[in-house]
C-alpha cells in the first residue's frame, strides 16, 4: 500500500538570535538527506530530511529548522 502523504516524523528548531516584529526573514531551504530503508513487506521507507536556515535583514542567521518526513512504498511501487 502506498501512503500518498509524507508523514512528519521529526522536527528540530535551533534559535541563534531573537526574531523581532518588523524583521525581514529569508529562508534557504534544502534537501539535506535522503535515506531508503527496506520494509518487511518488501517495500521501502524513504526518509527525507529537509533543512532551512533563516537569515534576518542584517544577514544574521537566526534559526535553523530541520524536519524528517517518512514516505512508505509497497513492493508494487518499486518495480
Amino acid at each position, binding site marked *: 500500500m502506498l501512503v500518498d502523504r509524507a508523514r*512528519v516524523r*521529526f*522536527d*528540530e*528548531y535551533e*534559535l*541563534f538570535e*531573537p526574531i523581532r516584529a518588523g524583521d525581514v526573514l529569508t529562508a534557504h531551504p534544502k534537501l539535506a538527506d535522503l535515506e531508503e530503508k527496506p520494509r518487511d513487506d518488501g517495500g521501502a521507507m524513504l526518509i527525507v530530511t529537509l533543512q532551512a536556515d533563516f537569515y534576518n535583514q542584517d544577514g544574521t542567521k537566526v534559526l535553523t529548522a530541520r524536519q524528517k518526513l517518512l514516505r512508505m512504498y509497497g513492493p508494487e511501487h518499486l518495480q
Partner: protein
Amino acid sequence: MAEQLFWEDVEEGQEVPPFSQKVGYMELNRFAGANEELVPIHMDADYAKNVAKLPDVIIMGNLKLAYIANAITDWAGDEGWITKLAIDYRKMDTVNSTITAKGKVTKKYQQDGKNLVDLDVWVENEAGEVTTPGSAVLSLPSRG
C-alpha cells in the same frame, strides 16, 4: 505572568511543571488555523477512520510540540529563552484525549557566556505512555 526562573535555582534532575490539555476539536481546529494545517486527518473523523484508516482524528505533532514549549516557557519565565527544541513524533495521540507535556533537567552548564539547561522533554497520553519524546536547550538569566 510567570515568575522568573534563574539559572542558579535549577538543579539536574529537576522536573518541569507539567502542562496538561484535553484536546477536542476546538483545540485542533484553532491550531489548524493558526498553523495553516487544515488537513482532514486532524479535522474529520469519517475521513480519518474510513479513508486514512487511522483509529480516530489524530492530534497534530506541532500542537504537541507547542504544548512542550508551553510547559518550558511557563516554568522559565519571560527572560528564559528556548534555544533548541527537537521532537520525535513516535506514536499517535487522538482527539478528545488529555495529553500532558513534561520535562526534566539533564544538564546545567555555562557556554559562550550563556547560562544553559539541557532538558529531556516529552508528551504522555492518559495511560502515561510517552508518545512524543524530545530534547530542549533553555537559556536562563543569572542572579549574578
